[in-house]
C-alpha cells in the first residue's frame, strides 16, 4: 500500500477500451520489448509455479511417481495433523510476541539514536552493524552466546544473580532465544524508524514545547502519530517475514533434528520444508504453502483495515 501511494499509481482503463493510435502501438511494442525479462520471468517463475503448486496441493505427488488427484484430502489431513498445529502455534508465537517486541525495541533505539549525543554516528554504526552479519553466521554466534555453560549471556546474568535458562535445549526458552537473535539484527528497522523521526517537522515539536508539553508528551502525542505509517509498514513487513521464518530455525537446532527441542522451533516454513524436501510429500507441502499464502493475505488485509483508525498520514 505504501508503495502504491508512493508510486503515484492511477487507474486507467484496460487497453482494449481505448482506440490505439500509431504512436501508442509503437510505444506498446517498445515497452513490451523492455519488459521482456520480467514478462518471461513472471510466466516461468511466478505464474506457472503458482498454477502448478495449486494443482499439486490437490494431489499426492512424489517427484518420482505420477501425480495422483485426491481432491481436498491434503487440506483435510492438515486439520488433523498435530505437527501442523504445533508449527502454526510456534509461528504465531513469533508473530504475536516477537514482532511487536522488536518494533517497540527498534523504535526506542531510533529515538535514542536521534538524540543529540556525543559520538552519535558511532552509536548508529554499532546499532546497525549486527544486521549485516549473514543469517547463518549470526545464528551460530547466538548458539554460542546462549550456550548454558560457557555462553557469555548466562555468565553476565550470573554476575547480577540470575540463573540463566538452558536456552537451546529447553522448549520454553528456545523461541525467546530466537527473538533475542532477531532483535540483535534489527538494525534495518531502526534505520527506517530513524529516517521517519528525522521527517517529523521540528515546528510541530517546538509548538508543543511552547504549549508546555513535556518530553514524554511530545513523544507520545506528536512523534508516535507522525511515524505511525512507518510503524504500519514495519509491522506488515515484519509479520510477513515471521510467517516465512526459516533459515534461523534451521540452523538453531545445531546437530539435532528439525524442530529441536521438542518441536518448539518447528516453524511453519520448517515443517513445510520437512514435508516437501525430506519426506518428499510435495502435494502436502504445496497445500501448506497455499494455506500460508491465505493466512498472510488475511493478516495483511486485517492489519491494513484495523490500522486505518490508528495511522496518521500527513498531507
Amino acid at each position, binding site marked *: 500500500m505504501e*508503495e*502504491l501511494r508512493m*508510486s503515484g*499509481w*492511477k487507474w*486507467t482503463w484496460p487497453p482494449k477500451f481505448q482506440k*490505439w493510435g500509431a504512436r501508442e502501438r509503437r*510505444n506498446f511494442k*517498445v*515497452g513490451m520489448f523492455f*519488459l521482456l*525479462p*520480467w514478462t518471461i*520471468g*513472471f510466466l516461468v*517463475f*511466478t505464474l506457472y*509455479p503458482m498454477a*502448478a*503448486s495449486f494443482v499439486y496441493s490437490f494431489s499426492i505427488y512424489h*517427484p518420482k511417481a505420477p501425480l495422483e488427484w485426491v481432491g481436498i484430502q491434503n487440506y483435510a489431513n492438515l486439520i488433523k495433523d498435530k505437527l501442523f498445529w504445533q508449527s502454526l502455534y510456534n509461528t504465531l508465537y513469533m508473530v504475536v510476541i516477537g514482532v511487536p517486541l522488536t518494533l517497540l525495541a527498534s523504535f526506542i533505539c531510533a529515538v*535514542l539514536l536521534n538524540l543529540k*549525543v556525543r559520538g552519535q554516528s558511532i*552509536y548508529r554504526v554499532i546499532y546497525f*552493524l549486527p544486521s*549485516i*552479519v*549473514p543469517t*547463518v*553466521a549470526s545464528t*551460530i*554466534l*547466538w548458539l*554460542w552466546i546462549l550456550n548454558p*555453560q*560457557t555462553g557469555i549471556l548466562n*555468565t553476565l546474568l*550470573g554476575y547480577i544473580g540470575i540463573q540463566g535458562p538452558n536456552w537451546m535445549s529447553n522448549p520454553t526458552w528456545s523461541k525467546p532465544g530466537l527473538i533475542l537473535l532477531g532483535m*540483535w539484527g534489527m538494525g*534495518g528497522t531502526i*534505520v*527506517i524508524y530513524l529516517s521517519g523521526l528525522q521527517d517529523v517537522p521540528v515546528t510541530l515539536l517546538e509548538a508543543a514545547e511552547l504549549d508546555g508539553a513535556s*518530553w514524554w508528551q511530545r513523544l507520545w502525542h506528536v512523534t508516535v502519530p507522525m511515524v505511525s505509517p512507518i510503524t504500519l*509498514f514495519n509491522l506488515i513487513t515484519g509479520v*510477513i*517475514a515471521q510467517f*516465512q521464518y526459516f533459515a534461523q530455525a*534451521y*540452523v538453531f537446532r545445531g*546437530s539435532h533434528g528439525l524442530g529441536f527441542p521438542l518441536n518448539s522451533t518447528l516453524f511453519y*516454513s520448517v515443517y513445510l520444508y520437512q514435508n*516437501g*524436501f525430506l519426506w518428499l510429500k*510435495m502435494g502436502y*507441502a504445496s497445500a*501448506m*504453502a*497455499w494455506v*500460508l*499464502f491465505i493466512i498472510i493475505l488475511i493478516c495483511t488485509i486485517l492489519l491494513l483495515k484495523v490500522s486505518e483508525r490508528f495511522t496518521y498520514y500527513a498531507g
Partner: protein
Amino acid sequence: MTTYQFPSPTKTDEETRRRLRARKIRDFFQSLFSHTAINFIGLFFLIPFLWMVLTAFKSSQDVFHTPPRWLPYDNVRVEVNGEQLPLYNVQTEEGAKQLVAVKIVEGVGTFVDPANPSQQMDYEIQQGATKIAEPVMHVYFNWRNFPDAMERGSRPGIGASFWVYFKNSLIIAFFAIVGTLISNTPVAYAFARIKFPGRDVLFVIILATMMLPYQVTMIPIYLFFNDLLGWGNSFLPLIIPTFFANAYDVFLLRQFFRTIPEEMCDAARVDGASEWQIFTRIILPLSVPVLATVTVFTFLWAWNDFTGPLLFLTSPKNFTMALGLQDFQSQRSMIWNQLMAASVVFTVPIVIAFFFAQKTFIQGIKLTGSKE
C-alpha cells in the same frame, strides 16, 4: 501602525533564576538517562560482535574455560630441543620453579628445566586440593584458527574447504549482480519513462508479486530446475532467475528513474533518439548511485541466501559459505573457535562493503524498506 509591546516582566529575578536552575537540573538528568540508555543498549549490539571476534582467536581449551574470559589466553611456550613446549609453575622440593612439560599422562607430568633439558622430573599435577603444577598463560591472539578453519571445511578430504565455499559464494554473487543489473534496468525504464497502454495494470501485477510468499512457488521451481532441466547441484538455479527481473529492484530503480528530468528524454526524442538510446546513453549514466545500491543489496542477498543453496546444492564441493558454515556446525558443533573464525571470514566482506558504501547501504534500506 501598531507596534507589539511585550508584556513587562512580572516575575522577580529570584524566581527566574530558580526556574533556570530547575531546568538545568532536569536537563542534566535527562542527558544522564539518555547517555546511560544509549550505552547500555549499545552493549547488547556490541558484545556479541566482539565475542565472535574474540572467540575466533582463542585456543581450543580456552574456549571452554569457566567462567569465560574476554581475552584469548594460551600457554606460554618455550623451545626445548626444537619443540615448542608449554611452561608450568611447579612447586618442587626446592621451591617454585618454572619448568617445561614434556608430556602429561594420567595426572603425572614429566618436566624438564629449560636451562638443563636432559634431566627429566616427574610431578603430580594436583595433590588433593592443591595444584602442584600450573600452566603459565598469557594473552595470545591465536590467528592460526583462521587458516585452520578455512583449510578444514565441513567435509575434509573431498575437496570441500571454506576456501572453496568462499569462491562458490563469490561466483554466485557476481553472476547474481550481473543478472540483476542487466534485467531490472530496462524493465524499470519502461515503467518509468515509456507511456504505453496497459502499463499501470502491469505495474500493479509486479507489485502484487511482492506479496507472494516464496513457499508457494518453491516446489514447482525446484522440480523445474532439478528434474526437468537437470540443473540440480549446480549454480544455475541460483543464478538464472536473477536474469529475469524482480519486483523489489524494478520498484527501486523505477523510483529513481522518475526523478531524472523528463525534459532530457524528450529533447533526445525530438533529436531522433530511440528509446534504447535514451535508456543507455542518458538514463543509465545518470543512475550510478542507484545502480550502486542495487549492486550492494544484490551482493548482500546472494551472500546471505541460505534457502536457495540448501534446496539446490547437494555435494559439499558446491556449497556456499552459508551452507558450508551450517554444515560445519552440524558436523562438529564443539569447535567454537574455528566456527567463529569461519563466521568472521564470512562477515568481513560485508563489513568492508559497509564501510566503503555506508551511504548506499542506508539509502537502500530507506528506499526498499529492508529487503528481507
